[in-house]
């Protein structure tokens, strides 16, 4: 991925994944430091959200929380982790782009209810937030932020229809929420004495569960995470994915499963998780993302071969696909670009002179590997097209390459996303505005080749053991949406109306992925 959002000078490039979640229940008698557990799990999922981080813990009686703006390592230190005591926890990393970047929107949300503390962390995007918000406001519930996650929290705080004669019935509350909420959500919930996690009926966003292991194979509890890489980091053994529409509860007596809506929708895991978002060591649908990316690269060679001397990838996300392309083609793979791994999100604004050459702040060409060569530059996707052009020039002018052939291990992104990725308008998508040849011209490449939708799906699905039970959302490539998004599409098409609407900037529409409201963030 190599696009810069127009106003995010040095931020991580490309579309923003909407959050990473984590939760764990450890046996109280093991005295595990759950705050530290959550810290390292969230650190492993930093790529899923870099704007704010938060951890809530409970000791079975009361809950504690700390959250703040910035990276996990910026938000937490020994002093503010120490008070987060208890044996169960949830954690959250959040992304929003413009508008909603303030502490009020940071998660988890923690509130006090009739039945003790309730904390919620959410990854995804609801598609009927407006009606849900209206229903809450009509009931007299005040809302302090504009996030879906607060809506989820407040919906869970209220007793379900039919009441609760025997105390809080969290499962019934969650089921009520799942039936009312449309869209993409992987949610973790902390109550006084349990961690709940659930996934929307189509399973658009990932969520998996593992068993925390101690010395000599002794189990210490259970954990849930957006990505399995977080489980590995904290010494948890990956067990399985939370099924689409499934609710799991982690408590003192183990892992409990409730198939609340598991048979109601066809599965539609976001294929962009494979293409770009997920960490390569994460496992989705029982296959390692790195393997899938290599297959995407190999398929790309099959569909779009090239005569060249060297294959390089845009680091780091396109590296596996570049290796796959090189192995399939027999063209040697090499490193062509060095990326500053620590650039992350900086609060120091570059001067105008540096801003013009922002790509060089982040990448340097390795001239020895490029000079005089015909170079295949593999990228995983092109969304807005702001970065790949400067990179092509950097390799040609700075690296001295004779030819630069761009190959993309996914199809053109031509349709907006309303399921938790911040590309919500047609206008911003270069794959919608231009033909492939126009894009080639725009980015200054000698040739440009994309993977086809069929080729991509073939590469993704060929490693799945039971492909008949797995389904994917590839709407951003195909326009084939798994949910009813008609209302959304009309908004996405009316982008120009927002642009002329005074303070509503185009990128606020892009950032929200839902019926826009000023300052509307992504969850």
């Amino acid at each position, binding site marked *: 991925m190599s696009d810069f959002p127009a106003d995010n000078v040095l931020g991580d490039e490309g579309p923003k994944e909407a959050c990473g979640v984590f939760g764990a229940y450890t*046996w*109280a*008698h093991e*005295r595990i430091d759950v705050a530290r557990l959550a810290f390292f799990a969230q650190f492993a999922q930093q790529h899923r959200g870099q704007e704010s981080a938060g951890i809530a813990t409970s000791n079975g009686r009361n809950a504690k929380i700390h959250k703040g703006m910035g990276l996990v390592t910026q938000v937490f230190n020994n002093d503010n982790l120490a008070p987060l005591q208890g044996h169960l926890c949830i954690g959250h990393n959040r992304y929003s782009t413009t508008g909603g970047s303030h502490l009020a929107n940071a998660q988890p949300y923690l509130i006090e209810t009739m039945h003790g503390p309730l904390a919620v962390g959410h990854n995804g995007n609801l598609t009927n937030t407006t009606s849900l918000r209206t229903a809450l406001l009509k009931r007299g519930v005040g809302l302090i932020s504009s996030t879906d996650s607060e809506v989820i929290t407040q919906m869970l705080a209220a007793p379900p229809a039919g009441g609760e*004669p*025997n*105390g809080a019935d969290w499962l019934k509350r969650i089921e009520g929420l799942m039936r009312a909420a449309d869209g993409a959500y992987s949610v973790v919930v902390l109550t006084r*004495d349990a961690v709940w996690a659930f996934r929307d009926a189509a399973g658009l966003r990932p969520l998996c569960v593992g068993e925390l292991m101690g010395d000599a194979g002794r189990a210490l509890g259970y954990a849930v995470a957006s990505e399995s890489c977080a489980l590995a980091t904290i010494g948890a053994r990956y067990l399985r994915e939370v099924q689409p529409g499934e609710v799991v509860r982690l408590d*003192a*007596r183990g892992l409990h499963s409730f198939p609340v809506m598991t048979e109601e929708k066809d599965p539609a895991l976001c294929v962009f998780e494979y293409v770009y978002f997920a960490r390569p060591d994460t496992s989705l649908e029982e296959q390692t993302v790195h393997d899938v990316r290599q297959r995407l690269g190999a398929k790309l060679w099959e569909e779009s071969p090239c005569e060249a001397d060297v294959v390089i990838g845009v680091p780091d996300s396109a590296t596996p696909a570049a290796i796959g392309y090189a192995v399939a083609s027999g063209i040697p793979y090499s490193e062509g670009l060095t990326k500053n791994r620590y650039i992350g999100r900086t609060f120091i604004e570059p001067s105008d002179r540096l801003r013009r050459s922002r790509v060089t702040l982040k990448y340097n060409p390795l001239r020895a590997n490029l000079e005089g060569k015909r170079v295949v530059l593999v990228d995983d996707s092109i969304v807005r097209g702001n970065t790949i052009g400067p990179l092509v020039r950097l390799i040609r002018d700075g690296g001295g390459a004779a030819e630069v052939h761009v190959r993309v291990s996914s199809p053109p992104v031509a349709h907006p996303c309303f399921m938790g990725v911040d590309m919500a308008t047609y206008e911003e998508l270069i794959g919608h505005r231009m033909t492939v040849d126009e894009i080639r011209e725009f980015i200054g490449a000698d040739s440009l080749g994309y993977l086809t939708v069929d080729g991509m799906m073939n590469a993704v699905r060929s490693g799945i053991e039971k492909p008949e039970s797995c389904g994917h959302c590839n709407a951003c490539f195909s326009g084939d949406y798994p949910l009813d998004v008609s209302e959304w599409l009309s908004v996405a098409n009316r982008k120009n109306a927002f642009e002329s609407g005074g303070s509503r900037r185009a990128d606020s529409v892009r950032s929200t992925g839902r019926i826009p409201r000023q300052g509307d963030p992504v969850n």
Partner: protein
Amino acid sequence: MAHVLVIGGGGREHALAWKLAQSPVVARVSVAPGNGGTEGGKIARCDVDVRHFDTLIGWCKAEDVALVVVGPEAPLADGISDALTAAGVACFGPKKACARIEASKSFAKRFMVEHGIPTAACETVTTAEQGHAWLDAHPGPIVVKASGLAAGKGVIVCDDASQAQAAVDVLMVDRMFGDAADEVLLEERLEGPEVSVLALCDGKTAVAMPAAQDHKRAYDGDEGPNTGGMGAYAPAPVVSAELLKSIEATVLQPVVDGFASRGTPYVGVLFAGLMLTADGVRVLEFNCRFGDPETQVVLPLLQTDLFTVLQACVRGSLAEMTVAWSDRSAATVVAASGGYPAKYEKGKTIVGTDAAGELTDTTVFHAGTRREADVLVTSGGRVLAVTGVGSDVGEAIERAYSGIGEIHFEGIHHRTDIGWRALRDDV
């Protein structure tokens, strides 16, 4: 058809009454004072004043009581069994001389030493100065115990000598438990899992019941203040059938033999608090009555008629019968009032006990409950316990928690990890 009187008002007494009421030869079970659960079917509360033995004897004769079963330790230490037996009323519960094994820890210690019952090394002191002197000579982990009855709270576990010195001062200088600490025991602190084994005793024979483990601390992870018990399960997986036989032979039977040799036969329940150390079983303490909440997990596993068993104990014919136990497991979870074991409110309406009792293999045993007109309300710290029975401890625990999930009252608190040793230790 017999009339049985159960003395006491806790969950233990509800469990006793519930089990006795299942006997085909029992027509009526009266519980004094009972609680909100000891009503219905064969069971009824009664208000007879059990502290005045003459009144009690008169009531038992007038009501044709065939057997009195005593729950708590205080009336036993006061001699209720002596008085009833002397008046010709059959009583299941040890006499005053035998109850000393619980009422006086120093007596119990001397008794164990005398009869070769395995226990921790120990010293009895009567002044703080003696205590400090002994502790100076014995560094290392120590348990400091008030000898007298201190409502189960006069035991202070210390990591080192300085904590132990402070504990001696709390008991003997500050006199936190008053006269109960006129004598104080200083005891080597043992390490290992704790189990409770209850035995039925008829004066000659001790028959062990399945071993139980309980959770004394108020909060998950065995944290927080000590309580009367927040839950229990039986049989404890950590005690094999062979180990139970060995405990019966080396701990329980020697106590019964010891009292028999003293001319004061032990009739009633002998409750042994044990630690399974690396060097073998050690007795931590004896109680002279059914445990609470151990009773709520042991009695549901009893297959032989309880009334017949208790009658055999009173008649001294226990050796002639077989006491049979189910091969299933039981677990109980206590629901307490918010704030327990410190200050808590009473009078909260309780809902869901009927629904909980209707689940498969669950039983609700009331403790701190009472009925106000038709409404069940809380009246104590430990309000009730739900026992589940299943093919293994895990299933029993799940069933107990299913039952707890049906029950609600304002401020309800229960542990969520009852049975973690059985579930996690995999022994």
